[in-house]
């Protein structure tokens, strides 16, 4: 890792990268939907707020507090600017899960007298799905909309799902597994016409693709720092202040910070980092998205040009620039990860879980369990290079070929056996 910041390296680095023959460092990190490396420019901006400028942003009567408050307000502006909002509409939280909880529970409780119906989609993040499930126990009615084969919600389904008790639609901007980007503007328009609040979990999208809360009629949006090269443990929630003004019942009571919606002393260094990350994203997005989608397409073309029976999960058109999710038929995902253990990616297989259920997102697209078990998510980010992409492609191809030679399913398919018609002995496993 190279940074310009003059800090001593940590004593031990579990993930220390080793140089490899062709100049690239191993292991390669290509799991940028899970988290991203902090941008050195972000770290530099944060550092003074740990020691020199350590004040509490709520301290109103001395310069320590003023310096912290000033930094927090600058961050608010930077975040707001990235999504076309105003600074006063940004509330700081501890991250995406809290933002989703605050948005959904806060709206549900505030507007309960107006209605008790919430609409979401089956491919949402667990932070949204589990929050909705929690509300169901409290008497709310939740519609979990299916998605189409490409991962996108059907706007006609959404229209049909809405009734006079609907108070909230919560649909993510971009999916964390397959990167598909939902039709936010169309969903926002439908919600606005019917006077329904529209919340979007935008943690994967913000900083990667343009999100404009006014053009898209978004009322509440969840943001997190660590998905866009900012720090972990800090997030934000955009809450619309006018046309319409959205109000939330807080989850955390206390000193009345953040306009009463989120009490608790502000995480000033984290907030400074989140603000800086948003500023960088805004400046770099036009070039960066072209570069990253170019790398992503290069990876796809190399892999799919060499291997037959590989399938892309989710729409290729409506998709984050850095996401590629591929199923490699006849090869189990976890064994593939084991073969490419010098590359950090994720699998849709879940052979370690008690239920052995593969990704619910892939299943929602209609992908069979067998192909869901065979999927790999590549998340290309700001710090990936062309040389890394080429290395990853070569390693994936060589490992899939090796595992297919080992796969009874591949052998049967080559012999012309229709795997769907086989009566499998171990269905109970």
């Amino acid at each position: 890792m190279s940074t310009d910041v003059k800090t001593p390296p940590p004593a031990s680095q579990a993930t220390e990268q080793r140089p490899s023959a062709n100049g690239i460092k191993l292991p390669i990190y290509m799991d940028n939907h899970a988290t991203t490396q902090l941008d050195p420019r972000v770290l530099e901006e944060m550092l003074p707020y740990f020691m020199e400028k350590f004040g509490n942003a709520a301290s109103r009567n001395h310069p320590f507090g003023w310096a912290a408050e000033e930094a927090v307000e600058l961050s608010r502006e930077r975040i707001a600017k990235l999504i076309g909002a105003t600074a006063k509409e940004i509330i700081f939280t501890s991250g995406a899960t809290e933002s989703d909880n605050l948005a959904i529970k806060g709206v549900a409780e505030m507007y309960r007298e107006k209605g008790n119906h919430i609409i979401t989609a089956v491919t949402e993040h667990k932070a949204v799905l589990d929050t909705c499930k929690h509300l169901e126990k409290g008497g709310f009615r939740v519609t979990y909309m299916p998605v189409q084969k490409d991962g996108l919600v059907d706007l006609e389904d959404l229209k049909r799902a809405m009734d006079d008790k609907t108070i909230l639609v919560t649909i993510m901007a971009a999916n964390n597994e397959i990167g598909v980007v939902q039709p936010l503007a169309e969903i926002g328009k439908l919600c606005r016409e019917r006077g329904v609040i529209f919340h979007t979990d935008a943690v994967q999208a913000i900083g990667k693709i343009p999100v404009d809360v006014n053009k898209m009629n978004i009322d509440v949006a969840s943001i997190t720092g660590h998905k866009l090269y900012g720090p972990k443990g800090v997030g934000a929630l955009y809450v619309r202040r006018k046309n319409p003004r959205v109000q939330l019942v807080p989850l955390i009571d206390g000193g009345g910070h953040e306009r009463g919606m989120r009490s608790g002393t502000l995480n000033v260094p984290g907030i400074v980092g989140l603000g800086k990350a948003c500023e960088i994203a805004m400046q770099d997005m036009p070039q960066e998205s072209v570069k990253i989608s170019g790398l992503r397409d290069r990876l796809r073309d190399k892999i799919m040009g060499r291997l037959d029976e590989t399938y892309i999960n989710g729409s290729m058109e409506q998709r984050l620039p850095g996401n590629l999710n591929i199923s490699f038929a006849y090869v189990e995902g976890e064994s593939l990860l084991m073969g490419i253990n010098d590359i950090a990616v994720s699998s849709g297989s879940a052979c370690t879980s008690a239920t052995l259920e593969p990704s619910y997102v892939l299943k929602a697209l209609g992908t069979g369990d067998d192909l869901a078990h065979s999927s790999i998510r590549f998340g290309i980010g700001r710090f990936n290079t062309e040389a890394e992409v080429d290395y990853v492609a070569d390693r994936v191809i060589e490992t899939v070929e090796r595992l297919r030679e080992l796969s009874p399913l591949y052998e049967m398919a080559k012999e012309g056996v229709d795997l769907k018609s086989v009566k499998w002995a171990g269905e109970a496993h």
Partner: protein
Amino acid sequence: MSYSDKVIDHYNHPRNVGSMDKSSADVGTGLVGAPECGDVMKLQIKVNPETSVIEDAKFKTFGCGSAIASSSLATEWVKGKTIDEALAIKNTEIVKELALPPVKIHCSVLAEDAIRAAIGDWKKKQEATKPVAVQAAH
């Protein structure tokens, strides 16, 4: 998750990968698991009909590293054993040898199932091909 050195060794250098002619009377084939569950094992044995000794074993596995290692180990262990000795192999021995964690025990169960299925298939073939001979012996 982290794997034991033995699992990694079997994954990187699987023993006895391949296929035998499943229509041959001396070959027993076991195919267990299901693609939907993320594990399918095919284990084949070639048995000497005179001695009931397993002279060769081959496998192919679709599954995680532990499933590959369990079936690879199973082929090593059955080779040279008689049918009865091979039937005595327990999944718990595979768990112990490969240091499988609790979430991977099903891989060893599947390997035991594969051994039994292969032997079962061979026995069925023996009965089908030699009914007269068996009767004559009584």
